[in-house]
């Protein structure tokens, strides 16, 4: 059993590729955003900020757990667990692993919007987080 979980862990780490910088995450999202909408005109930190703070008709926003200042640590809205800062300027470990970023967008967008986020929305949020110094 121990060997099995360990091999799984090793495969997962070996299978993930670290981005050189958070900006590297944007190129594939940009391509997807263009495919989704030919009129797509680039990501926007301002749009990302508004998206991050909005409740989108549900109970939670991104800010419910990550606060309205993602340079600060937050708390999980249900469990109370401390969550480390999300902005790369405050926490250099953030936005480095594309697989991890995808995983958490998938999970958290379902919590906040009850659907997955579009490439344009993800790019806006990443652009917003990168803009915080």
């Amino acid at each position: 059993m121990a060997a099995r979980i360990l091999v799984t862990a090793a495969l997962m780490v070996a299978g993930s590729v670290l981005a050189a910088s958070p900006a590297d995450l944007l190129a594939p999202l940009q391509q997807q955003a263009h495919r989704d909408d030919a009129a797509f005109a680039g990501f926007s930190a301002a749009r990302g900020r508004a998206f991050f703070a909005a409740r989108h008709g549900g109970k939670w926003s991104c800010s419910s757990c990550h606060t309205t200042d993602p340079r600060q640590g937050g708390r999980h809205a249900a469990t109370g667990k401390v969550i480390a800062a999300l902005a790369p300027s405050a926490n250099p470990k953030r936005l480095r692993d594309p697989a991890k970023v995808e995983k958490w967008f998938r999970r958290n967008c379902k919590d906040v919007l009850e659907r997955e986020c579009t490439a344009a929305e993800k790019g806006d949020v990443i652009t917003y987080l990168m803009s915080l110094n």
Partner: protein
Amino acid sequence: MTTLKWIPLLAVTTTGLGLSAAAVADGHRFGAPDPTWQDECGSCHVAYPPQLLPAASWRALFAGLDDHFGTDAAVAQDIAAALLDHAVSNAGRPVESEPPLRISEMRWFLREHDEVSPATWNKPEVGSQANCAACHTRAEQGDFSERYLEIPR
């Protein structure tokens, strides 16, 4: 590149599992969580030691990860299988009643926390009974011993 990443990970994993085996004895110290368990089950809440629930509870929890206390916590099938294997292999003793899904519904949990006042549970820095680390300052390392217990005042 792949090889380089294997070596440190294996070393860390071995250390973690080694500690775990040695520390189980006193009932409050479970050792550092397995790294995969920590990664997959330790982001939204403490990576609860598998010993805290019986195997039947873990099976029920893993059967419903897509609606895990109101959120979708589904993981890839092969990872879920490995995690469940880990949970069941290290699970606590079976209970006679319906196996609870929440650790806070286990009888030993209620007994061990019967002196904690509602005012303490309701403190903003505690937030919920899921937030072990609010008082068990080394919960993240699998150590729930009284030595590292600090109840917020």
